[in-house]
Every structure is written in C-alpha cells, then in structure tokens.
C-alpha cells in the first residue's frame, strides 16, 4: 500500500515538470514568464518564490477545502495566496535585496499568477494534503525550469553573459533586442513552436490558450463568447474557401477523367 502511494507521488511530481508543465503545456503564468526572463538569475529568483507560494497555498487550501463555501472559494483562495506572497516578499526583501530590486512589482504580482490559482482550483481543492504539496513542488520546479531556460537564452544572446559571467560578450555583439520586451515575446514564441514540433512528433495535443486552463473559467460566463474557433468569421471564410477549392479540384478531376475517356473513345 505504502509502495503504491509512493509511486503516485512520483507521478504527480513529474507531471508538473514535464507532461503538464504549467507554462509549456497549460499556458499559465505567461505574464511572469515574459517579464522576468531577461536574466537567468531573475528566473531562478522568481521561480523559487513562486514555488514557495504554490506549495504553501496548495497545503493550506487542501487543508481547508471542506470549510470554504462554494460561492466564495475564489476570494478565499486569493486571500490565502496573498498571505503567502506577503511572507515571501518580506523574506526576499530581508535576505536577497538585489533579487527584490530586479523583480520589482512582479514579486507581489505572484498573487495574480494564474498558475497558483489554477492549481488551487484544479488540484488542491480536490486532493489530499500530501499530493497537493508534491503537486506544488512539481509545478513550481517546472515553472522555474522554463524561466531558467528562457532567461538563459535571452541573457546569453541579448547580453552576452550567463548569471552575470561574460560568455560571448567579447566575441560577438549581443543582440540587445532579446532583452527588450519584444524579444521576450519572440523567444517564448520560438519555444512554443519547438513544443509544437515535439507534440506533433509524439502525437500529443498541442498547447493552446483555452478556457479550460483558465482558473476563472468556472466564474466566467464569457467563455462561450471569448472567441471559440468555430464562431470566428475568418475561420468560417477559410472553411468555405477550402470547400470551394475542393469542389474546383473535383471538377477538374472530373474534367480530366472525361477528357481521358474522350481520348480513349477516339
């Protein structure tokens, strides 16, 4: 029995890092990912702070999940999360003032990082304490990994350094644009393209920004109107165009067949 629950924990832990990576697979926490990934060290600071908050909030929420009335659960979760964010804010200010300066308002903004609310809503409110803690650690480390990856790419290419150590700074001119906001979008776009390739190869579903991964989905009646693909007029036009092209092709094929027949007849 003990053996069985152990393997479960391992699976939950690994799910957060790879299969259900919060950024790459669930597309959560994009704001923080783009904003603080200008340097590798910022990524680590932000990732570990988020992990702390995630573990704490998952722990508390899974403990009190039966006490919270259904209707006020989102405000209750947000309050718990804000409490942990205040704790980490004070810890970082006290022990790592340089990280605090680098992260700026993004440190308190962990409160509204969708990863944390989404895990509270989807996992901690349905699972026992132990599993919730492990899920928090796995998700947090998965998030840290992506931040470190993006931070490294942007810092090495954009500034020629890695963790502040010069790497290519004296060899080639750094591409400053990767440090700028637009570079963040670009690197993240490339990363998602690589993920798409990987998903196609392994036959998994591609990551999409959808209402399913949105933590506010249950409170939001706008999901139906927030742009489902079938409703979009452009998509309709495209489908219509594709049908038309298919018809034309069929006609052409029919014509060819008829021509072939005529030739045979002659």
């Amino acid at each position: 029995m003990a053996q069985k629950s152990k393997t479960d924990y391992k699976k939950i832990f690994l799910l957060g890092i790879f299969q259900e990576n919060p950024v790459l697979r669930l597309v959560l926490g994009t704001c923080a990912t783009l904003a603080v990934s200008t340097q590798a060290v910022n990524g680590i600071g932000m990732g570990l702070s988020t992990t702390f908050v995630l573990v704490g909030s998952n722990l508390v929420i899974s403990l009190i999940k039966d006490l919270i009335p259904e209707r006020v659960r989102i405000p209750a979760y947000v309050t718990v999360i804000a409490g942990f964010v205040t704790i980490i804010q004070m810890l970082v200010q006290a022990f790592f003032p340089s990280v605090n300066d680098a992260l700026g308002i993004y440190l308190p903004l962990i409160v509204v990082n969708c990863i944390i609310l989404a895990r509270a809503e989807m996992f901690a409110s349905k699972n026992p304490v132990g599993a919730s803690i492990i899920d928090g650690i796995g998700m947090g480390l998965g998030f840290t990994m992506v931040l470190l990856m993006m931070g490294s790419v942007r810092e090495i290419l954009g500034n020629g350094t890695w963790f502040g150590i010069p790497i290519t700074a004296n060899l080639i001119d750094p591409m400053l644009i990767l440090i700028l906001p637009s570079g963040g979008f670009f690197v993240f776009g490339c990363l998602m393209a690589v993920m798409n390739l990987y998903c196609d190869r392994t036959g998994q579903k591609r990551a999409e920004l959808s209402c399913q991964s949105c933590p506010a989905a249950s409170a939001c009646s706008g999901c139906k109107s927030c742009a489902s693909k079938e409703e979009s007029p452009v998509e309709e036009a495209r489908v219509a165009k594709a049908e038309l092209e298919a018809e034309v092709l069929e006609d052409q094929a029919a014509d060819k067949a008829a021509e072939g027949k005529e030739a045979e007849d002659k």
Partner: protein
Amino acid sequence: MMREILIIVFTAVLTENFVLSQFLGICPFLGVSKKLSSAVGMSGAVIFVMTLASAVTQPIYQFILAPNGLEYLNTIVFIIVIAALVQLVETALKRYMPPLYRALGIYLPLITTNCAVLGVALLNIDEGYGFIESVVNGFGGGVGFMVALIMFSGVRERIERNNIPKALQGLPITLIAASIVSLSFTGFAGVVEGLFA
C-alpha cells in the same frame, strides 16, 4: 499640472504600455484578442476597473496603511479590495444598468485575477503618485490596454488568412506577431519627453 497629467497618460498608453512593455495582462491579451467585439468589451471593462481600483487603493494606502506603518500589507489589502470592488461593480451594473452589464459583465470576473489591475495599484504606490495622478495612470493604463488589444485583434485576423508553417500555427505565431507589435511600440521611447519638453 496639466502637463504632468498628459505625460502620465501618454507614458501609460505609448512608451510604457501595460501589455506590450510591462507584460501586465498577457492572458486576456492573447485570449480575448481573437475577435474585435470581445476585445472592445474586455478593454472597456478593464479601463473601468483599473480607474476605479486606482481611485480606491491610493487613498487606502495613503490614509490607512501608511500612517499606521502597515505598508507591508499592501498586496493582501489591495487584492481583497479589488476582488470586492469587482463584485460590487458587477452587482451594481446588473441592477441599475443592464445594457452596460450585458456588454461588459461577462468579462468582470476575469478581471479580478488580471495582473494589470493589481499592477497599476502597486505601480501607483511605487511611483509615489497622489490621488489625481493615480486615477489618471489607471485610466491611461486601461486605454493602453485597449489600444494594444484592438490593434492586435486586427493583426490576428490578418494572420488567420495566411499560410503559416505547421510548427508555428496557433500560439507561436501569435506570440511572434505580439513581438513585432511590441517592437513598434519601442519606437515611442523618448517621444513623450520630447512632446512636452
């Protein structure tokens, strides 16, 4: 005073655009920009809530938290105030202005967890803005969000009509398009100071 207010508005809308240069509110920016109508509805709600949140949180900080040495509680107080405010606005709109509620109401629950709203409240404190400057900054930030969202929904409609390499389809091409839109906003750097020098 007028000059300062104009500088705050133009900075919030153009040079320090909340979405494109400060990465606040990326989720709705990517999620709701597929259709122009929902982009307009969403940004209307965001302008409304950001202005209101700035107007409420700044006095709370200045007159309640700061005099009592409770500055460290600002994150937790602000998020609770914003959540309550959004709920209040939703109820009030439903009761007194049904047409406006139908237009904006469905986006309101999403806004509680929108980083732009908490972000503007925290930025106002960081910058040391007074009441009027905070409200103006909140409004400007909301308008900046609307500009970015509406522009981007146009860009996305164009993207949908084109042939895109298979690996880039979906989210990646959206992000790369956002990168180019964001790059164009980088061009505004320094313009605002020049305008009102």
